[in-house]
């Protein structure tokens, strides 16, 4: 494996685009990344397209139909919420293997307002009758495990929502960009205890793209190097309750251990982290899963502001999924966009000062975990 660098990134503002085809959204993000790289579509040698809801509908091909049908290999990727990051990983391996010099990953999604609550209520469904297998309850229960083990309170999860909404006021690409007060988070409509409305990521549409290249291409384009220090993917290993209550922690810990070994850094070296806060409860668990604090210390870390912009380890300064949004296939590329933007010093008002090492993490329920560590 040779070194792989990020040459260009692009992202459209997450939001609602009901009148556009998802391939148009993806194409816009691709063109932004190409402009950022100083390249044209003819320079791309492989495309990995991440899209979940239209996984069987050749979104990658439809993107090239929008911006240039160059006949290159296209991999259409789906891996639950880890779709975009798995697409990035495909691009990374394409270049790292030596087979290609430049590859692009584009993550996109158009969700409408349906959300992921569909799936219950059909004739044969057990949803609601035999508990719930849907995300709000699963992540509610996962948060409850932390409450049971360490006495963490609902308020700690709510503070994460406050933090991420506050962060998003400085991110012009975030779906929502307003602050929300702690009382408003606590008193908002309950979705699945302990997560209220503001503690659940919204549905939305969006796209992000990243171009990776070999060192020789990087030198030709004279860009400031951002290296992909590692790309890690895990699935959920057997744990006693995993088949009943999906275990989002073990596979993340496994991925983190491998990632830190491969990248030759530790959690204390991270200048910023973009992690998978699909629900506020998830973010808290991942502070510990990624080793950003010791097990059992997450609540204290929240109370003491360790994970805020300006804190010990800023987490989700983009606004996270909670405020920036979570168009499923786009997210895994969007958090790489965010980390790269900071490593280049281009993050404007939300810039983490002197950022040199960043980590992007995603969990796809079912389950898959990706971790990418990027260095400047």
């Amino acid at each position, binding site marked *: 494996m040779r070194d792989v660098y990020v040459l260009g990134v692009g992202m459209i503002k997450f939001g609602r685009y009901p009148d556009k085809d998802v391939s148009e959204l993806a194409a816009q993000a691709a063109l932004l990344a190409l402009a950022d790289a100083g390249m044209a579509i003819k320079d791309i040698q492989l495309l990995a397209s991440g899209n979940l809801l239209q996984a069987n509908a050749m979104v990658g091909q439809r993107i090239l139909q929008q911006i240039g049908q160059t006949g290159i290999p296209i991999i259409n990727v789906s891996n639950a919420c880890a779709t975009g990051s798995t697409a990035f990983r495909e691009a990374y391996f394409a270049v790292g293997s030596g087979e290609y010099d430049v590859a692009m990953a584009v993550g996109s999604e158009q969700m409408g307002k349906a959300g992921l*609550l*569909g*799936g*219950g*209520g059909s*004739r044969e*469904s*057990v*949803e*609601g*009758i*035999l*508990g*719930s*297998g*849907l995300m*709000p*309850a*699963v992540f*509610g*229960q996962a948060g*409850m*495990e932390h409450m*049971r083990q360490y006495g963490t309170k609902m308020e700690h999860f709510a503070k994460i929502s406050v933090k991420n909404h506050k962060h998003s006021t400085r991110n012009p690409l975030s779906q929502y960009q307003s602050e929300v007060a702690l009382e408003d988070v606590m008193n908002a*409509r*309950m*979705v*699945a*205890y*302990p997560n209220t409305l503001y503690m659940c990521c919204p549905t939305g549409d969006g796209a992000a793209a990243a171009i990776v290249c070999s060192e020789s291409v990087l030198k030709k384009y004279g860009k400031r190097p951002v290296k992909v220090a590692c790309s890690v993917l895990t699935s959920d290993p*057997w744990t*006693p*309750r995993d*088949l*009943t*209550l999906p275990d989002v922690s073990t596979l993340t810990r496994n991925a983190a251990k491998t990632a830190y070994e491969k990248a030759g850094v530790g959690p204390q070296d991270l200048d910023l982290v973009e992690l998978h806060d699909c629900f506020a409860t998830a973010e808290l668990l991942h502070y510990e899963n990624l080793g950003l604090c010791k097990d059992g210390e997450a609540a204290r870390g929240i109370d003491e502001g360790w994970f805020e912009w300006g804190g010990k380890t800023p987490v989700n300064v983009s606004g996270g999924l909670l405020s920036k949004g979570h168009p499923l296939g786009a997210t895994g590329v969007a958090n790489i966009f965010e980390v790269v933007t900071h490593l280049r010093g281009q993050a404007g008002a939300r810039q983490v000062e002197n950022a040199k090492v960043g980590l992007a993490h995603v969990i796809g329920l079912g389950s898959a975990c990706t971790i990418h560590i990027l260095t400047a």
Partner: protein
Amino acid sequence: MSQQTAPQPEGKKARPIVPFLRLGDNGEKPHLVAKKCGNCGALYLGSRVACSKCSATGPFNEIRLSDKGTLWVYSIVHQSAPGIPTPYVAAIVDLPEGASVRCTLIDVEPKPEKLPFGMPVEMVTKKVREDKDGNDVIAFFFRPTK
């Protein structure tokens, strides 16, 4: 006072909502069964091709699970798919044999104060709907042990 399956009109059957719920046709109480890996002892609700813990392709022995357990964790669901009444308590119950089961808690107020971790619970069964052939579909629930 556990619920008995209602007697079925001529030609209709009661069937369990999932195959690992046994309705106890021969005068037994309804109960859950698990497949136990003969090699490593891992427990599964539902059939297996092979054990996902140790990869053994068998033997899988069926064991009967206790109808009494404890509450591991829960979430109170207020927003769900159309047709599902809310709020309801989505729970994970631990059974003494080492299995955990995903279920809905009933006969309890859906409030955190009423749902202490480790609360003893017991299984009951109820008809939840009819299938396309008109048979009663029976599901299991757990409720606080009286």
